[in-house]
């Protein structure tokens, strides 16, 4: 069960091949056909696939029939870079210009929001990460709750935190927030107030000598 590669000292000399995952990916690609937009395999690490939004529920069903019966998790990524940074800006200084270009992750993507989930084949650790683009105009994908019972709560959480709808979900109530809460806290453009109400103590610097212009004071 433990592969011989687990030993920590020797590194494999040849390019690592991962036949188990390659075979699994081939089977998945075959079963899903044209629904897969993109896929990525990192040897001895993981598989990523991206499917079309229309086939999201069908993907879940197909993968379940392929033996990926264990539901890991489901969540959303907001690929927009945070307009607030780490909240370490000086409030008195002019606002910092931040890049707003979206840099997608593994298996690519075209939209700001991506729903991603992880399914695992039980008794192995062969897992698969499935991503799906969420159209900004629709902001919804199909629900997986009828395929995997465990997806129910994950979708509720994703709905509340990112504002993504899940068509066919029985009950998209808020789990954490009051029902009249406005906004979706996990979106990158939702400010983290704790980092805004108080200025960063690291902004202040050592006061220079009167009349000294050089920024870097030589200590000792």
């Amino acid at each position, binding site marked *: *069960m433990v592969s011989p590669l687990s030993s920590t000292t020797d590194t494999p000399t040849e390019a690592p091949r991962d036949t188990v995952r390659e075979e699994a990916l081939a089977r998945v690609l075959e079963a899903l056909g044209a629904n897969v937009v993109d896929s990525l395999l990192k040897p001895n690490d*993981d598989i990523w696939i991206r499917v079309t939004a229309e086939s999201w529920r069908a993907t879940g069903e197909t993968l379940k029939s392929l033996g990926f019966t264990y539901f890991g998790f489901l969540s959303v990524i907001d690929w927009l870079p945070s307009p607030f940074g*780490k909240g370490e800006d000086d409030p008195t200084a002019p606002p910092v210009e931040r890049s707003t270009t979206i*840099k997608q992750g593994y298996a690519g993507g075209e939209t700001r929001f991506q729903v991603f989930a992880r399914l695992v084949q*039980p008794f192995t650790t062969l897992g698969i990460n499935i991503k799906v683009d969420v159209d900004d105009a629709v902001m919804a994908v199909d629900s997986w709750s009828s395929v995997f019972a465990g997806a129910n709560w994950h979708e509720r959480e994703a709905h509340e935190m990112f504002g993504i709808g899940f068509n066919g979900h029985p009950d998209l109530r808020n789990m954490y927030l009051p029902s009249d809460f406005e906004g979706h806290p996990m979106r990158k453009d939702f400010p983290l107030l704790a980092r805004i109400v108080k200025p960063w103590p690291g902004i202040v610097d050592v006061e220079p000598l009167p009349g000294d212009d050089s920024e870097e004071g030589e200590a000792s």
Partner: protein
Amino acid sequence: MTMLGDRQQLAYIAAQAADARVNVELETEGMTLNIGPQHPATHGTLRIIARLDGEQVVWAEPSAGYMHRGYEKLTEVRTFPQVTALVNRIDWLGSFANEVPFILAAEKLMGVEAPSRAQHIRTILFELSRIANVSLFLGDLGVQLGAITPVFFAFRDREYVLNLIEAATGGRFHPNFDRIGGLKDDLPAGFIDETRVVMKKLRTFCDQIEDLLFGNEIFQARTRGIGVIPKDVALSYGLSGANLRASGVDWDLRRDQDIPMAWNKTEFKVITHPDGDSFARCWVRLQEVRESTKIVDQLLDTIPAGPVMAKVPKIIKVPEGEAWVSTENPLGEMGYYVVSQGDQGPFRVKIRSASFNNISIVPWLLKGVYVPDIITILASLYFILGDIDR
């Protein structure tokens, strides 16, 4: 290990059906019982809204979120070393175990691997935090069922483990000892000998709990055949850890997964139970504490010499990429999906905590049980609020 016979299971189902028939005949208006958020049985602030018919639950729904701290959001404004201090607080009873998958995910992205001594010590501390966590569960189980003595035994013996963790890491509850590339420090002198003594004490503790609680006929009457989770339901809800193994699924990420930790250098049994009821879940946990003490003993014997820190830059920037690492934490499978964009801090961290999935089965499981069984089932599912709400 006793199997719950088909006959017993059928009898349980028949009894439930008979109750349901009686309820239809004597239909009265139900009562909504609000258990929590401040309730002794919900260790933390879980709220259960139960619709009752007499003492029988018609419908129940847990309502989490009274302790949501938004860790996924908070990680986005922190650097990788700062996140370690944060994720300690997710499952606060087994906090060291929370750090490990996160650090492993970051190491995977950076392409570094901790030296084998660090891996050993990590595994030792991981198992110690499992013992600390689950031994408290065993005591708490007694309280939920009305036996007040086990919890004091649990606190007494957990204290020894916490002392060990504190001696090694400096923090009783929140060690923050893991670093990308290794550990903050080596073990202090005397740690190994002391740990051996404590492991013996904990095995005695397990015997005591077994005699005091698990062997008790009343305990068995309260837990056997109650809250049965079949195998496929458990898988589709994404249950993990002892809850899954108690349903007869022989799956342990410590054994079945290839990650840079020292478990594959030890011999241990993966405990499973075929019944899937409350008793099975509790029993599996008890045996797992025993196995953990044995794992720790073996690791103490084989701990290699060497450094505890690989060469990593002082200011850590994690290269772009995505990584998923999960480990078999005290509560179940805990994993982190880390997305990095080459910054000092992660871009997005999805925390897959065990209790969130484990507790999502509650509405399914609580239908038709009696009010006292709510408590037993919740206790046997064993959740920690920080682990649900994150």
